């Protein structure tokens, strides 16, 4: 049963598998993103209060979700790497960080653009925004710490530990809208009871969320292949790979 796990840890096998996976993530991602964009911008009805302004939700919510999803994925990979000394897991964590940071930035930027017409301000120091900003700083810290080490494997482990420590921020982000009742609206979708959003808006949002997740997976897989090549440079299997190409 553990064979697949060990195989996953072997860089050449992983490199080939990842290469085959990219189109399986990428093509559905592209289809869902196009469908979600068209549906969200053109087909979904305007909001009774915010008019067409609410449509930025189709970018804001998925990217905010990916910013947290990416961090948790990175931290889990970091833990796997620390516990089982798995090289590919560290490479995955390294590949996640810049992508996650980019989505965090996108979530902050779109939130800011959304905030200006709706709340009248670009930025408000409430719990949700501040904790997402901290998430961005954590991504930057993890990347900076990894690159500060000359010894790559030491940098990997130090960054992994920092990533795990930073997980304390994730529940704070999730519950910040419930703990502090401020400008940012509380959750509309991820609720145990019925979501407080109408079905013909929700479908496109879900398409976007799934599309963003697959897009994230595709980009991380591509980065991961590059990361594996970089880390294994000089290994025999790469020379053989080049000989065939």
């Amino acid at each position, binding site marked *: 049963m553990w064979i697949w796990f060990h195989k996953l840890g072997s860089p050449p096998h992983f490199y080939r598998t990842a290469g085959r996976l990219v189109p399986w993530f990428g093509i559905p991602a592209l289809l869902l993103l196009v469908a979600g964009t068209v549906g969200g911008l053109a087909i979904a009805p305007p909001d009774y209060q915010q008019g067409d302004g609410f449509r930025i939700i189709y970018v804001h919510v998925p990217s905010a979700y990916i910013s947290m999803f990416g961090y948790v994925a990175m931290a889990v990979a970091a833990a796997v790497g620390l516990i089982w000394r798995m090289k590919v897991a560290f490479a995955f964590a390294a590949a996640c960080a810049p992508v996650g940071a980019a989505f965090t930035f996108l979530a902050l930027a779109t939130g800011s653009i959304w905030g200006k017409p709706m709340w009248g301000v670009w930025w408000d120091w409430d719990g949700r925004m501040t904790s997402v900003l901290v998430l961005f*700083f954590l991504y930057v*810290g993890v990347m900076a*710490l990894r690159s*500060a*080490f000359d010894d790559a494997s*030491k940098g990997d*482990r*130090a960054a992994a*530990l920092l990533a795990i420590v930073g997980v304390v921020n994730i529940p704070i982000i999730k519950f910040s809208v419930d703990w502090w009742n401020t400008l940012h609206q509380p959750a509309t979708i991820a609720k145990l009871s019925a979501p407080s959003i109408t079905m013909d808006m929700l479908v496109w949002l879900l398409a976007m969320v799934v599309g963003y997740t697959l897009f994230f997976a595709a980009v991380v897989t591509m980065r991961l292949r590059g990361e594996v090549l970089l880390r294994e440079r000089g290994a025999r299997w790469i020379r053989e790979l080049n000989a065939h190409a």
Partner: protein
Amino acid sequence: MNSTGQAMLALARRDLRAALRRWGELGLPLMFFVIVVTLFPLGLAPERDLLGSIGPGVLWVAALLASLLALEGLFRSDMEDGSMEQLILSPQPLVLLALVKALTHWALTGLPLVVLTPLVAQAFYLPANATWVLMLALLLATPTLSLIGAVAAALTASLRRGAGILGILVLPLALPLLVFGARATDLAVQGQSATGPLYLLAALLVLAITLAPLAIAAALRISVD
């Protein structure tokens, strides 16, 4: 007394003695704190209302930066002379030794800061009751800060140019302390009850005491390796 307790006590005494023999280094972060705080009334118009309203925030930011300055040397000398290897190899749990090192560091840098506070608070015309709340809040927040800082210091202990990165690692994690600490002081200045933020600071301290030593010990193992 069991041997772990003895080892913890011995480590604390050794760290205190080593630090007290170098007065200059110990006083540096404190002087930095005082100077940063005095810069604000000089840089801004020295009006009572203005200083009173920005005072709590300035004091908290200055305390945060001063403690950052003190963090750098936390594990440096132990790494250089090989005592860190001995601590890791010793039969005592490294988690508890890490806790001792962080708390000793607090006693040397955080505690003097708290004692110094009533003096500096006068520069911002803080009322007496708010000064008490500020001291209590700093008393609760500075150990947490030392513990969080020790995690970052342990991660960067083997880096030669670790100082710059230390700030990037510590300050985001220290943000809740700043928020609740400044909130508590602010409430006290306005004459309201500050118990809410103070309880939250206490909760963060309990959380840090239980979890941070685990991270410090793991980070030290990575750094020494």
